C-alpha cells in the first residue's frame, strides 16, 4: 500500500518577502542587476544572539527557515532532519581558504573551518533542538534538494520517523558570484528580474535561498498540501525522453497531463536552457496553465525548493500570486500542481503536489 505524504508546514527565506507572517507574494521585490539576494529577517528574534554572532549567512538563513517551519507546525523534536545544499557553506569556506593562502598556512583562525562543512546547517538545527534523530545532508549539485526529499519520503515510508524536517539552503557569495559570472551563467548586461522572460538571450540571474518543509505521513489540520510524488532524471538525451519521463511519472500516479491544474516550470531566462520548457509548451503541456518562478528567486541549484514552497502555498491559499502572470481562474480551487525544473540541462526533477481534501 502506498503511503500519503503531507506537507504540514513550510517556510522560506528568499529574494522575495516570503518569511514570517507576510502576504503571499503580493509585493514583489524587484532587482535591477542580475544578482538576487535573500531578504533577511531580523534573526535576533529567532536565534540566540551569542550563536548568531558566529554564524555565516547560510547558517542563519537555513537555521531560521527550519525553526520557523517547525514553529508553524508546533513541533520541536522532528523525527529526522534532512538537508540539501549544492555549494555548502561557501562564505566560511572562502574565508578559511583566503586566510590559509594569505597567512601562508600560519595558523588561520579555525572558526570558519569548523563551520565550513556541508552538514553545518543540518547539524546546527539538531544542536539547537537537541535533536538526536536521523540527520543527513545531500550535496549533489542540482539534485541536492531532491535527494533530501527522497530520503525524507523514504524515512516516512519505512516508518523510521513520524515526521521529517526536509529542506535546502544555498548562498551566493561575492566570490561565487564572480566565478559563476566568469563561467557565463548570468546575463551580461544589467537585467531586471521582472523582465527575465522577455529577452531571448544567454544567461540567467543569480539567486539563493532556503526552504524547509515538515513532512508527515498522516493528515492533520493545517496541512498545506499532499506531496504525491517526485522523481529525478539525470542528463536526459532528448526532448522525447523528457516527455516520456513526465508521462510515465504521471502514469505511475494514475493521472495524465489533463489532470494537472497548473504547471510550474524552472524557466530561468537563458534562451538555450528554456528551450525544453518552450518545446513542452507546444507538445505535452500545450494549453496548460503554466507559471514560472525563477524571476522571483533567481537561479541556483536548490531553487526547486522555492518552487515547492510556492506550489504548497498556492494549494493552501487557493490563490496564485499575480506576479507570476497567472491568467487562469481560481474560481474552481486548484487541485494538482506539477513542478518541472531542470538545472543546467543535467538535473531534471518532477514534483507532484495536490490540495488536501
Amino acid at each position: 500500500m502506498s503511503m500519503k505524504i503531507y506537507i504540514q508546514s513550510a517556510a522560506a527565506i528568499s529574494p522575495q518577502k516570503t518569511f514570517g507572517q507576510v502576504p503571499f507574494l503580493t509585493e514583489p521585490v524587484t532587482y535591477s542587476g542580475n544578482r538576487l539576494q535573500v531578504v533577511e529577517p531580523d534573526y535576533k528574534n529567532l536565534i540566540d544572539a551569542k550563536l548568531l554572532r558566529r554564524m555565516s549567512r547560510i547558517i542563519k538563513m537555513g537555521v531560521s527557515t527550519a525553526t520557523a517551519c517547525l514553529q508553524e507546525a508546533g513541533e520541536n523534536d522532528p523525527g529526522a532532519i534532512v538537508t540539501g545544499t549544492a555549494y555548502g557553506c561557501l562564505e566560511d569556506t572562502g574565508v578559511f581558504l583566503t586566510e590559509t593562502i594569505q597567512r601562508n598556512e600560519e595558523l588561520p583562525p579555525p572558526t570558519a573551518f569548523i563551520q565550513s562543512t556541508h552538514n553545518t546547517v543540518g547539524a546546527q538545527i539538531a544542536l539547537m533542538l537537541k535533536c538526536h534523530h536521523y540527520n543527513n545532508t545531500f550535496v549533489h549539485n542540482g539534485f541536492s534538494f531532491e535527494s533530501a526529499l527522497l530520503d525524507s519520503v523514504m524515512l516516512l515510508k519505512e516508518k523510521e520517523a513520524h515526521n521529517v524536517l526536509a529542506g535546502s539552503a544555498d548562498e551566493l557569495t561575492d566570490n561565487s558570484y564572480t566565478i559563476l559570472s566568469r563561467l557565463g551563467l548570468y546575463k551580461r548586461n544589467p537585467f531586471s528580474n521582472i523582465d527575465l522572460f522577455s529577452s531571448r538571450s544567454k544567461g540567467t540571474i543569480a539567486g539563493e535561498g532556503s526552504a524547509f518543509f515538515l513532512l508527515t505521513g498522516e493528515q492533520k489540520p493545517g496541512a498545506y498540501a499532499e506531496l504525491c510524488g517526485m522523481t529525478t532524471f539525470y542528463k536526459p538525451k532528448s526532448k522525447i525522453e523528457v516527455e516520456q519521463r513526465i508521462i510515465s511519472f504521471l502514469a505511475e500516479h494514475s493521472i495524465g497531463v489533463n489532470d494537472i491544474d497548473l504547471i510550474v516550470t524552472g524557466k530561468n531566462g537563458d534562451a538555450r536552457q528554456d528551450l525544453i520548457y518552450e518545446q513542452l509548451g507546444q507538445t505535452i503541456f500545450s494549453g496548460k496553465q503554466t507559471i514560472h518562478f525563477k524571476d522571483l528567486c533567481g537561479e541556483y541549484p536548490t531553487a526547486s525548493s522555492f518552487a515547492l514552497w510556492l506550489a504548497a502555498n498556492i494549494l493552501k491559499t487557493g490563490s496564485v500570486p499575480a506576479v507570476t502572470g497567472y491568467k487562469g481562474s481560481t474560481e474552481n480551487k486548484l487541485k494538482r500542481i506539477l513542478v518541472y525544473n531542470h538545472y543546467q540541462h543535467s538535473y531534471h526533477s518532477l514534483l507532484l503536489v495536490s490540495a488536501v481534501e
Partner: protein
Amino acid sequence: MSTGVFIAGAGAITAIGNNIAECISALEKEQAGMGEICYLETMHRNKIPVAEVKLNNEELCALSGLPLHTSRTALLSSIAAKEALQDAGIENISSLRTGFISANTVGGMDKTEKFFSNFLDDLTKGRLREVVNHECGYTTELVADLLGIDHYVSTISTACSSSANAIFFAARLIKQDMLDVVIAGGTDALTKFTLNGFNTLMILDREYCKPFDNNRMGLNLGEGAGYLVLVSDRVAGSLKKQLYGKLSGYHNANDAYHQTASSPDGTGSFLAMTGALARSGLQPSDIDYINLHGTGTQNNDLAEGTAISRVFAAPYPMMSSTKSFTGHTLGASGGIEAVLSVLSIKHGMVYPNLRFKTPMAELGFVPQTSFLKGRPIKHVLSNSFGFGGNCSSLIFSKL
C-alpha cells in the same frame, strides 16, 4: 522489496595500497601508510606526517582513465569504484537499475586551492577549469559518467561519517526496490584546506597517531577512497561469485552536543551503535570485531570508548582503529572501513591497532594489537562519527 542487502564487491585505494590486495598485504605486515608529505604542496611538509596515497596525479590518471586536470578526489574515487565494480563481476550492469552514491567532504578543493591563489590577487585570474568541479557532487558525477551509471547518482556530505551514510542510503534504496545495484562509499584527497583546518584545531599528532592509547596526541590525516557494491537479493542470487556478506544493521543519530566536539558520554555514538544492533536483531555479544572510528584525538576516543562501555560488556569484542594504518581519510573513512569490515568477514581477519601501548585509564578494554587471520568472524560493527554530531554505525554479517 528486497529482503536483504548483499555485498558483492569491494574496492579501495589508501596510503597502504592502491587496491585491496595491496591493502591486505600491508595490514598483514603491519605496515602503516603514514610518512612525510610527498605530493601535497604545503608549508607543513616535513613537519606534519600524513597518510598519502603513494601515487602522484599523473600515475593516478593512468589508473583512472580521467584527464590530468581532474581533482585528486575524483581520481581516487574512480580507481576504487572501478575495482569494486570489477570485483562484483556483474555482467549486465546496464540492464539493471544501477546507482552510484558517493560521499566526500571537500570535492574538488585541491584544484580550487590552485585557482584561488591566483583569483585572490586578481578576480579575473585563475583558470576556470580548476574551479568548475569544486562542488562535492561533481566529484561523484565525473566518476558516474566514467562508469556509465546514470540511473541514480547522489552525493552525501556529513563530515567524517559521510560514506557510512552513503552505504546506508544505498541499502535503503535497494530495500525500497528503487535500485538493484549500488556502488556506495566515499572519497577524499588531502588538501591544504583540510590539513590547515585540522592543524588550527590543534588535533594533529606530530608523530604517527595512537588511537585508543592513554597517551594519544591526535589524528593523522589520510586520503583515499573505498566502495562496496551492494545488490538486491535477486541480483545476489544471479551471481556466480561468493558474496562478502550482507549489511544487517545501520543507524544514524546525532550527538547534538557541539559543532566539532563529541559529548563526554558518547550519546551519538551510543545511539548509532544500539540502533544498528536493534535493526540487525543481534545482541552486543554477537559482534566479533569492531572497526572503531578511533581517530586518535582525546575527545573522539574517549566518547567512542565510553559509548562502547555502555553498549558492550566483558568479554568485549575484538576492536581496532585501522586509522592507525590509513590515517583519517575523512569523507572516505566510512567507505574504506566498510571495505575492511567485509574483508574481515571474508578472510576471518582482525587488524591490529598499531602503536598501542597504554590502556586508556577510563576504559576497561584494550584494542587488538596483532594481526589475526582465519578467525570465525561473523558480525562486524563499523563506526563513523563526524563534525556536526553526525554519528553512523554499520553492521556487516556473514551469510
